[in-house]
């Protein structure tokens, strides 16, 4: 099928983090003069595979070959020597030294053992000019914008004898013109026979520049396809997956329409610096609004905009008809809007504290330190939530960090519910928890809504969003393209909306 010999080949790659496999049995090939994209949702194992290729992580099983010869990478330096250059997602450069040094550190031109600064600047100037960048090579890197710094990182990568170039989300901080410039450089490198791995969650960019796509899901290899033979919708299907293990459907029928209720929260024209553009949101009392979209479409950013975590550049938020200015999550909380972050471990649960302490935390913070709750009252409160949500084991004094993911999530829910919120914004509440716990959380959300709580439910899994929600807001590139009643859509019709080419201004 493939006439050419792959330049870099990974077979059966498996990496364990503790007992869990981050990737398992993944195959991956890169051909000279070809741009290959690695696609998958968060946690699919893209970064792990990239780290294995660039020598940051070691493979527990599987092998790596370069030009048919086995390749053992012990460090990023080995990868560099083998001709594998990487531009990482977060800029991994040094703001405190000059642009030229950032490009040549470790292989500066030298004269009589000393760094030849003049020659280094001259060469840096040439490499940068290649990228269409005319900045002073002697200036400090930190004096430039993030986009320029990103291009300098790319300049560093291509200034070596590069054979394999790994670009991990290089475009996330670039504007349209800069992306075009980068693509021009990528095409030029292709001509030179460099094998390029291009990771981006912008489908348009993937389809514009990539020849081949490998899809990962949940750490497993899904398939390798030629981009021109793979429809966008199929790609999205493969990334998100269709879980056939269908669960019992929600106990209540989705309310049809908005039923004449007044919205609890109305947002108009939300725009933030994190990429939300002109988003309109209506959340009705006792209803669940699902948010669907690909990674990078602004799911989390929307939640943060609504709950006062991110600063609004434009737009208004109204609660029960009155204007609100949420300058902080705390202000939002006083109006009954509670936010549960997607990063359960880092922004949610306090692993060292007990279940009791975790649940009581927010209520106590709300009361202030002068109004300490009596220990008996604390226990009573926590106990009632542990029972109501079915937290297991029902041991109030157990360390929260030792609970399973699903039960940690319930503890977090209990903490927020103890504040008696009126709108709960749940960002990926079911990520990384097992299927049974997922169903429990989903049912819990339905129950809460039945009891009059409004919910914004964000998840990467479309089936789940459709199952839980009354209405679904579809996000693409930070913009809500449509909000539809859940009863009237299917996974496929939402996928079609999600995957449509991103010319949304034009086709509406």
């Amino acid at each position, binding site marked *: 099928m493939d006439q050419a010999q792959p330049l870099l080949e990974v077979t059966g790659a498996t990496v364990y983090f503790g007992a869990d496999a981050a990737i398992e049995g993944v195959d991956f090939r890169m051909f000279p003069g070809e741009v290959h994209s690695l696609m998958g949702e968060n946690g699919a194992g893209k970064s792990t595979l990239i780290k294995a290729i660039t020598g940051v992580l070691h493979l527990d099983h599987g092998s790596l070959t370069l030009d048919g010869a086995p390749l053992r990478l012990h460090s990023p330096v080995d990868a560099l020597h083998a001709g594998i250059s990487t531009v990482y997602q977060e800029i991994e450069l*040094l703001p405190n030294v000059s642009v030229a040094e950032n490009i040549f550190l470790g292989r500066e031109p030298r004269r009589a053992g000393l760094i030849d600064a003049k020659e280094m600047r001259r060469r840096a100037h040439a490499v940068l000019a290649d990228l269409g960048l005319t900045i002073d090579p002697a*200036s*400090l890197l930190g004096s430039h914008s993030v986009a320029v710094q990103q291009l300098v990182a790319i300049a560093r990568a291509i200034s070596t004898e590069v054979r394999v170039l790994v670009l991990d989300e290089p475009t996330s901080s670039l504007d349209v013109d800069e992306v075009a410039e980068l693509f021009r450089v990528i095409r030029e490198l292709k001509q030179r026979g460099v094998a390029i791995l291009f990771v981006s969650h912008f489908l348009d960019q993937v389809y514009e520049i990539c020849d081949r796509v490998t899809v990962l899901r949940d750490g497993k290899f899904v398939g390798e396809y030629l981009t021109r033979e793979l429809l966008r919708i199929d790609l999205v299907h493969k990334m998100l997956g269709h879980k056939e293990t269908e669960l019992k459907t929600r106990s209540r029928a989705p309310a049809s329409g908005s039923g004449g209720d007044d919205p609890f929260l109305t947002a108009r024209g939300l725009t933030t610096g994190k990429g939300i553009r002109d988003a309109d949101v209506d959340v009705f009392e006792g209803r669940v609004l699902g948010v669907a979209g690909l990674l990078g479409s602004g799911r989390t950013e929307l939640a943060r905009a609504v709950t006062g975590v991110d600063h609004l550049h434009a737009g208004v938020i109204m609660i029960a008809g009155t204007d609100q200015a949420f300058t902080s999550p705390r202000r939002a909380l006083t109006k009954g809007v509670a936010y549960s972050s997607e990063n359960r471990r880092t922004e949610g649960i306090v692993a060292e504290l007990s279940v009791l302490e975790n649940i009581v935390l927010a209520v106590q913070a709300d009361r202030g330190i002068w109004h300490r709750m009596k220990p008996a009252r604390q226990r009573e409160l926590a106990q009632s939530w542990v029972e109501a949500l079915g937290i297991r084991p029902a041991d109030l004094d157990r360390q929260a960090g030792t609970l399973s993911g699903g039960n940690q999530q319930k503890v977090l829910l209990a903490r927020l519910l103890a504040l008696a919120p009126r709108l709960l914004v749940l960002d990926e509440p079911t990520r990384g928890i097992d299927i049974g716990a997922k169903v429990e959380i989903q049912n819990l959300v339905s129950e809460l809504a039945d009891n009059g709580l409004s919910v914004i439910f964000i998840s990467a899994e479309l089936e789940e969003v459709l199952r839980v929600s009354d209405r679904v807001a579809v996000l693409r590139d930070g913009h809500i393209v449509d909000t539809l009643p859940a009863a009237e859509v299917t996974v496929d019709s939402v996928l079609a909306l999600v995957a449509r080419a991103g010319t949304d201004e034009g086709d509406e």
Partner: protein
Amino acid sequence: MTTIDVSPPPTPTRDSLATRYHTFMSRHASLMPTFAAIAILIAIFIGAQIYFGNFVTPRNISALLLDNAYLLILAVGMTFVIVTGGIDLSVGSVMAFTGIWLAKLLAGGTSALIAIPTIVLGGALIGLLIGVLVQYFDVQPFIASLAGLFLARGLAYVVSLASIKVENEAVLWLQSTRFKLGDWYITPTGILALLVVAVGAFVMQFTRFGRTIYAIGGNENSARLMGLNIARTKVAVYVISGVCAGLAGLVLTAYSGAGYPRNGIGTELDAIAAVVIGGTVLTGGRGYVLGSMVGVFVYGTINTVISFMGAEQSWTRIIVGLLLLVFIVVQRAIVARAERRR
């Protein structure tokens, strides 16, 4: 120095001045604290000259270098360490240990040619120990060098509990010889200190090793991903600091004509203060050896001014403390500004 510059060739217009200013700032923003230190030094000189009338004399300035030679050497080593983002608290004790050990060796009849390399090597070994602890055992530099501090102080007491007078000709020569030019003079210890400064500044600016030090201070993880040799460099800066402490022991012993195990208690903090006043950022990545020299002179001049006034020497500490406070706030502002621009 010619450079490739994308800005238009300078013409004597206001626009060009603005461009030049911009180019300069984008290249050398991290020099600003050092310039501030120079400005303060000049201000103190001018103020003291007006107040006392006879302050800025060749004699006084020559004495400034002579009296602070050991501190200058310590500050150079400290600059290497702090630019990587580390700290070395051991240098005061190491200086005391090497100083008393030198006095003891010389008193025992060892030739200076053997004794001096021996004690410098001793300083290097303590530095090596700290560096290995920091790099390979992942101990905080603060803790590792604190261990070095106690170890060296203990060793100093093991060598001798009392002061030992130095009668060795060669070592006394280092101090007593004055090369004169009019009213100006310099001692071999002063020459040694300036030599250390010159070598230090040169290494940090023009060698791959020196640039790796800045890279580590900028972002150690990035530097590692760039394929730089982190481990070797990090150990080496502590060894350099140890060598400098050994040399400072030699200079101090020559200066005071005796070794004394209680020398240099708190001197590590004076060295750190001088380095910070000279414009080196405690979090690493920014700083200059020449700046540290300015810092030492600021410190030394304040000392001299206080003794000219006949005031309590504790005022030196208070003023240096205040200056330190100001400088740390200024640095914080500069770093915060840089972060905002990213």
